């Protein structure tokens, strides 16, 4: 079951981003704030941000699309990031990722049908000494093997 909240209104978007308007270089903090609020950067925010910051809509889109971390649709209730960088690959990260995705029956950036978890690739969590590494809702987990992955997945309800 995919959960789709109604798209935020312009007032709601302004409510989230306006407190950041006085920052120097406010666009990225605003995008983070939007993603924190809704789990993604809603398309409706593009013209609003362009208006607030007096930018072209294209420029705002250019920034959002540059960062893979910004989603254009809501993620599942939990986000599992698997490190794809060299150190983790050398420690079996690739096989771990393959088996995890296969188990969940989804691809990269996919969300499980029950809406519990979204799996995303990430390039280096700075946890190379404990490779292969993962991150669950912002919390890093090291030395992930199949058993540990089982625990993670049951924890997030996948």
């Amino acid at each position, binding site marked *: 079951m995919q959960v789709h909240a109604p798209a935020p209104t312009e007032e709601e978007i302004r409510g989230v981003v306006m407190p950041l308007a006085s920052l120097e270089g406010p666009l990225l903090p605003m995008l983070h704030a939007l993603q924190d609020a809704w789990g993604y950067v809603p398309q409706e925010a593009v013209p609003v941000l362009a208006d607030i910051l007096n930018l*072209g*809509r294209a*420029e705002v*889109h*250019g920034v959002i699309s540059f960062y*893979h971390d910004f989603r254009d649709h809501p993620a599942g209730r939990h986000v599992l990031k698997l490190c794809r960088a060299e150190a983790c690959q050398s420690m079996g990260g690739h096989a771990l990722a393959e088996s995890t995705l296969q188990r969940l029956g989804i691809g990269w950036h996919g969300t499980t049908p029950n809406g519990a978890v979204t799996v995303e690739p990430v390039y280096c969590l700075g946890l190379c000494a404990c490779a292969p590494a993962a991150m669950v809702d912002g919390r890093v987990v090291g030395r992930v093997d199949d058993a540990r992955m089982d625990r993670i997945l049951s924890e997030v309800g996948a």
Partner: protein
Amino acid sequence: MRDFIIPQYPPGAEPHDDRDMGTPAKQGAPVTLTVDGFAITVPEGTSVMRAAAEAGIMVPKLCASDNMEAFGSCRLCVVEIEGRRGTPASCTTPVTEGMVVHTQSDKLRRMRRGVMELYISDHPLDCLTCAANGDCELQDMAGAVGLRDVRYKAPEDRPLLNHFAQRDGAGVNAHYLPKDESNPYFTFDPAKCIVCSRCVRACEEVQGTFALTIEGRGFDSRVKAGAIGDDFLTSDCVSCGACVQACPTATLQEKSVIELGTPERSVITTCAYCGVGCSFKAELNGDQLVRMVPYKHGKANRGHSCVKGRFAYGYAQHKDRILKPMIRDTIDQPWREVEWAEAMAFAAAKLRGIQERYGRKSVGVITSSRCTNEETYLVQKLTRAVFGNNNTDTCARVCHSPTGYGLGKTYGTSAGTQDFDSVEQADVVMIIGANPTDGHPVFASRLKKRLRQGARLIVVDPRRTDIVRSAHVEATHHLPLKPGTNVAVVTAMAHVIVTEGLFDQDFIRTRCDWDEFQFYADFVSDPRHSPEAVEMLTGVPAADLRAAARLYATGGNGAIYYGLGVTEHSQGSTTVIGIANLAMLTGNIGRVGVGVNPLRGQNNVQGACDMGSFPHELPGYRHVKLPDVRAIFEQAWGCTIDPEPGLRIPNMLDAAVEGTFKGLYCQGEDILQSDPDTHHVAAGLAAMECVIVHDLFLNETANYAHVFLPGSTFLEKDGTFTNAERRINRVRKVMAPRNGYEDWEITQLLANALLKETGGAAWHYTHPRQIMEEIAATTPSFAGVTYEVLEEKGSVQWPCNETVPDGTPLMHVDGFVSGKGHFMVTEYVATDERTGPRFPLLMTTGRILSQYNVGAQTRRTENVVWHPEDVLEINPHDAEQRGIKDGDWVRLASRAGETTLRAILTDRVAAGVVYTTFHHPATQANVVTTDFSDWATNCPEYKVTAVQVSLSNGPSDWQERYGEQAERSRRILTAAE
């Protein structure tokens, strides 16, 4: 696609050198370096790439172009510099003294080939069928670096990852994006894109619209117009063509080139749309125009263009264009096509007959602000030398005649004081009653560039125009005044400057009449002129007005640009005087970066005024009552000139209704649609016995004409246009006139037919250069202007004579033309046009980017995709009171008349104000405007009409009323065919 801006000619370069120097010219101390053994001296800050180009050595490049800052992304322009490690990009490396650069070596060649191989590995090799074949920088660079092979081959089990193949063996290529053909004039084919970012940077740096971006990153980087879901048409793109110009491949390509092939010859000429006067290269195959490309050495546009000049030339070939002369005895008859001789004999007999019956002064002419100087000169000569009266007027009557009066009285000459380059050194720009992003887009781009560099902006306009706030541009102060209160606002600004002691006393003492200043200072210091006192009247918050006045007076170089929002009022002339006063008060006149600049509407409205189109002035703004001036022309023309000024357009129409004015020769102007109070214009035209319309199309005025003379387009004739900066630009014939004659020849045919009737000596001009010789011989400000000078210098700004042989970019440098500058008091007098219970809203009119004036040209091009009909902008507050929703069909009524059109709800206009355009005859916004006009010059008060807006029953109801109206007008006057 190889012509880009060089802001200043490099010393020693040929003036018509079209090479792309790679990076913009810089100014600075001279630096000498050696490139491939050649010593070259360039200004400090110049890139190694540009220095090499000036030495004649073109370093291979793809992402660099000399109309935008260096970007350093393509890595093709690498060079070796002695004493430095590595291979720096020559575009981003500034020169240093004594630097020794090598642009060729084995290492560099290998690197460049390697880079090209990568580019070509993701580019379709369909050169022979590609629209850019022969005009492609990627192709050129592949040749320049000696690319012979691409080593990147697809592995056996899968295809090479690419963006250009629609299918990749396994199925649909997920990286392939289809062509975007949404823009009517150019296509965007992502398959050919090398992601050099030139289009994105051109949109930002040259045009200032920020409609494009690079989306994604790495291999997924793509050029994108707008955000998700947008194509070029729905994005913020204004179709200026800068991206198409910048594209080194066929990714952004004119549809006309795709259809017609690569042009093989080009002619440099001048755009026939607005008063910016952009220079273009008309590129052709034979007599087939393929495209118009902005000319990088054009001094008004510096290589930039807008959607009209760049793309909207299709009207020249439109099926509506009339190519044969036509006549009829009465306007209820159908037109009859005849030969030129018969048309001329018919017209001459009619006009002479009218003069015999009703007197010498019963006929007149209206000159065209779209025709050349030479043609306009002949038309006013026709009325003065052949008709024997001064009944000549021009559409400047209805636009900038108050500029002529106001600047003439204060400064002594009737023209803007600066060249367009001047804006690059302005610190505070004040725009009053002008909408440059729509009306003068190329100037607006140059202005926006300066604003992005930090200049500050004050906008005085009832409407929140795009320049008030758009991407990366924001006015420091927007004073949204109530229409009709310009004088009060300008006088209040002077009040602040005088009472707060912000005026430039030294300037005023040396340059202006001190007694007049004191009188003026006393006048404006009166507390009744304070911002607080006029706040209720103007609707402008006093604090804002004070802040704006302080900024203009103290912010550095202050430049004023104004438009028809100043002049088209009952106090238009007074506002112009008030603006001139402000500039003198603050010493903002007579140097670069300052000045008072009318943004003139039409391509040659400045020239039409210069050429003696007004009934009281001979060419060069000299009054007809002056015997010595008349003597010059009497001698040149072999005739006697009437010392009495003739009739203005409104007087002609009044006299026609009264029965004393019976014949009119109207060249290239549609007074029925463009002049105010359509009912009155129609009645005047209908009362005449011979109306000769000389135009490209059967315009609305032609419905009342007896003779139709088909005109030639700007592409079909030689001559000159004079733009808003007094710049005389050459118009060159790029193809033969489809109607058979250039317009000056047609006027000469008419003159000679008339002269034959009376036995006068015929005119014998064989080329417009002879007409310019006559203008130069009779008019001191044009004394030095010849076609040879124009060929040599490209263009000159008048005055151009023995004292200033190179022309005059800046006016009033050492003193005003009139000697001392004159301060004049500017008492605010409210217009008689008032809102009341019946007509509670104020309507103001204007125009939009894609359409031009009455739309006769632009309505006959693809530009209609942006503006298919006139709409009424109304504030949501006013709309709600009337139950009007966005898109509703509404009735717009004033005491003069009414029309119906669609309403758009927007807070661009304040409550109490509505706004529309007058581009479409189906709407005829001027049915609503009134006959009030400027007290000094009769310039109509288009900008203030009291109106009421109410819901209408939709188009069918409107059709009904329109039918009735047409029938009504048919009773007194009958439409054509």
